[in-house]
C-alpha cells in the first residue's frame, strides 16, 4: 500500500502498513510507540460509540413485545407534528371528506397514504411500499417482508395548520398517560375534542381514539410538564416520581438545529424540577424525561412535551395602538391624554 497521500500524508502515514492498520482498527495496536495517538483515538471512538441502548420507538417496542407488527412503523401523531422517524411529513391543510390526499415516499422506504378522517383529523395509512430507496441487504438475508396495510392514527382535533417549523407548538400527550399535560401557558397547544371514528377503519390494535397521541406503546410510567419559566426565555420542567427501582433521571431536549450534546447541569435523585436557561427566545424545544435503572438503562420514558419559549423581553410595552408616542397616563383605557412630547404635563 502506498504511504503517500494527497494531503501530505507521507509525513504522518509513512509508518503505517496494512498490518498496522488492521491491528489498530481492531483495538490491538500497542498503546505506546508511533501509533499510540491513533490507538488512543480508536479506543475513545469505540468507547464513545458503545453507549446503552436507546428507548425503542413505540412500533419497535410493540414488535419486540408481541412479535408482530400490528401497527405501523410510525405511531399516531398529531397533525402538524414533525417527528423524524415517526411521521416524516406534516399536513399544513387538508380537505374534509377527501378519501385519499396523497401518497408520500418516506426516507425509511415506507409509503403512507394521507387523507382526511372525518372533518377534524387526518387518517394516515401505511401501505406496503414498492418504491423503497433501498432494499435490505442481500446475501444471507432476505428483503423485508411486505408490511401489512395498517390503519393508524386517530388524530383528534386540529385547530390549525400546525406547522411546527413556523414557530407554533404541538404538544403530544398520550391518552394513556393522563397526568402528562402541557402547561396552560403553552402557546398553541392543540386541545382536541375526542373524535368519533365511525366513518373510518378502526385501528387493528389498541390505538387510542382520543386526543393527539404519539407514543401510545411506550410504557409511560413517568410524565413531564414543561412551560416557559415565568416571563424569562427559560423553560421549567417538572416530572413525576419514577417507577420503582429507578435511581436517576435523564432529561432530554430536542431542538431544531440538529444533533448535539450540551450538558447543562447535574441533578440528584430528589430533584423533580429543572429550569433550562440555555434556551433561545421564541424557539420551540421538546423535552422528555427518562427514569434510569441503576445500570443506566431506561426504566421508563415520558412522552415529548413541546414548549415555545417567550419572546425576547423588550424595553417597554406598547400602549395605545393609535399613537406612536404613548400617553403618560391611562394607557389601557383609551384616554385622550396627550403624549408627553406634545409639551403637555399630566396632572
Amino acid at each position: 500500500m502506498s504511504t503517500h497521500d494527497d494531503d501530505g500524508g507521507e509525513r504522518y502515514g509513512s509508518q503505517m502498513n496494512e498490518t498496522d492498520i488492521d491491528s489498530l482498527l481492531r483495538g490491538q495496536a500497542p498503546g505506546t510507540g508511533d501509533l499510540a495517538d491513533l490507538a488512543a483515538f480508536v479506543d475513545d471512538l469505540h468507547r464513545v460509540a458503545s453507549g446503552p441502548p436507546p428507548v425503542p420507538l413505540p412500533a419497535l417496542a410493540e414488535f419486540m413485545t408481541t412479535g408482530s407488527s400490528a401497527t405501523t412503523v410510525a405511531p399516531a401523531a398529531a397533525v402538524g407534528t414533525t417527528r423524524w422517524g415517526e411521521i416524516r411529513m406534516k399536513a399544513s391543510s387538508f380537505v374534509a371528506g377527501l378519501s385519499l390526499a396523497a401518497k408520500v415516499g418516506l426516507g425509511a422506504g415506507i409509503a403512507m397514504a394521507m387523507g382526511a378522517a372525518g372533518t377534524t383529523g387526518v387518517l394516515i395509512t401505511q401501505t406496503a411500499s414498492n418504491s423503497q430507496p433501498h432494499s435490505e441487504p442481500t446475501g444471507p438475508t432476505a428483503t423485508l417482508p411486505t408490511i401489512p396495510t395498517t390503519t393508524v392514527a386517530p388524530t383528534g382535533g386540529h385547530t390549525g395548520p400546525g406547522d411546527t417549523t413556523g414557530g407554533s407548538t404541538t404538544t403530544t400527550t398520550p391518552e394513556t398517560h393522563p397526568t402528562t399535560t402541557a402547561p396552560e401557558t403553552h402557546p398553541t397547544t392543540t386541545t382536541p375534542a375526542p373524535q368519533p371514528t365511525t366513518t373510518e377503519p378502526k385501528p387493528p390494535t389498541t390505538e387510542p381514539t382520543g386526543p393527539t397521541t404519539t407514543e401510545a406503546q411506550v410504557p409511560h410510567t413517568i410524565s413531564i410538564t414543561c412551560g416557559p419559566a415565568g416571563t424569562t426565555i427559560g423553560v421549567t420542567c417538572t416530572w413525576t416520581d419514577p417507577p420503582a427501582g429507578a435511581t436517576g433521571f435523564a432529561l432530554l431536549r430536542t431542538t431544531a438545529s440538529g444533533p448535539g450534546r450540551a450538558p447543562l447541569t447535574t441533578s440528584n435523585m430528589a430533584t423533580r424540577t429543572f429550569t433550562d436557561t440555555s434556551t433561545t427566545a421564541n424557539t420551540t424545544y421538546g423535552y422528555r424525561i427518562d427514569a434510569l435503572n441503576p445500570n443506566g438503562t431506561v426504566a421508563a420514558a415520558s412522552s415529548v412535551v413541546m414548549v415555545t419559549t417567550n419572546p425576547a423581553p423588550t424595553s417597554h410595552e406598547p400602549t395605545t395602538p393609535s399613537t406612536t408616542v404613548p400617553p403618560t397616563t391611562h394607557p389601557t383605557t383609551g384616554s385622550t391624554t396627550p403624549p408627553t412630547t406634545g409639551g403637555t404635563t399630566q396632572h
Partner: protein
Amino acid sequence: MAGNGRSAMGSLGEDFDPALAQARAGKAPGFEALWRAYAGSVAGYLRLQGASDPDAVTSEVFLGAFRGLSGFEGNEERFRAWLFTIAHRRLVDDRRFTSRRPVTSAFEETWVGPAGPSAEDDAMRQASAARVEEQCASLPSDQREVILLRVVAELTVEEVAEAIGRSPGAVKALQHRALVSLRKTISLKGVPQ
C-alpha cells in the same frame, strides 16, 4: 487504555444462537437480547455519522432487521455485518430525507442523575465524546463511514466493502487516508491524556 484490544462489541457469544432462534419465533426475550447487545453501538454509529435522530433511526434499523429475521442465515459476525449494513442504508435514506427537508429534531442529553457515572467520570466521558465527535466530523464522509464501520461495528474490510458497495481495495484506501488525516489532526491538536 490503548493496546490491549477489546472485547467484541455487544457480543452475545454462545447466547447468540438461542437469542436468534427466539427472535425468529417472535419471542420477546430474543428481540430484547439482540436489542440490548447491539442497539447502543448502532445508535453510536448513527450519532457519529450525524444522523438527524440517531435513536429513532436505530429503532427503524432494528424493526427492519427483526422483520427480516426469517430470511437471515449466519452466525453472530454475519448478523452484526447485516445489521450495520441496514444501518448504513437507513443513514443514506436519512441524509436523503434531511437534505430535502433540513429541519430535524434530535435529542441532546442535558443531564444525567446519580444513576450514571460519577460527575468526574461523566465530565471526562463528555470531553472524550466531544473530542471524538469533532475528530470524526473532520473526516470526509466516505472516510468516516469506513472508520466507523471498522471500529464501531467491528466489521472486516470485506464486510465494510459489502455494506457500502465499494471494493475491498477502495475500503483499504479510504481507511488509510482517514488514519493519515486523523493522525495529522491529532498531531496538530494533541490528545489529552
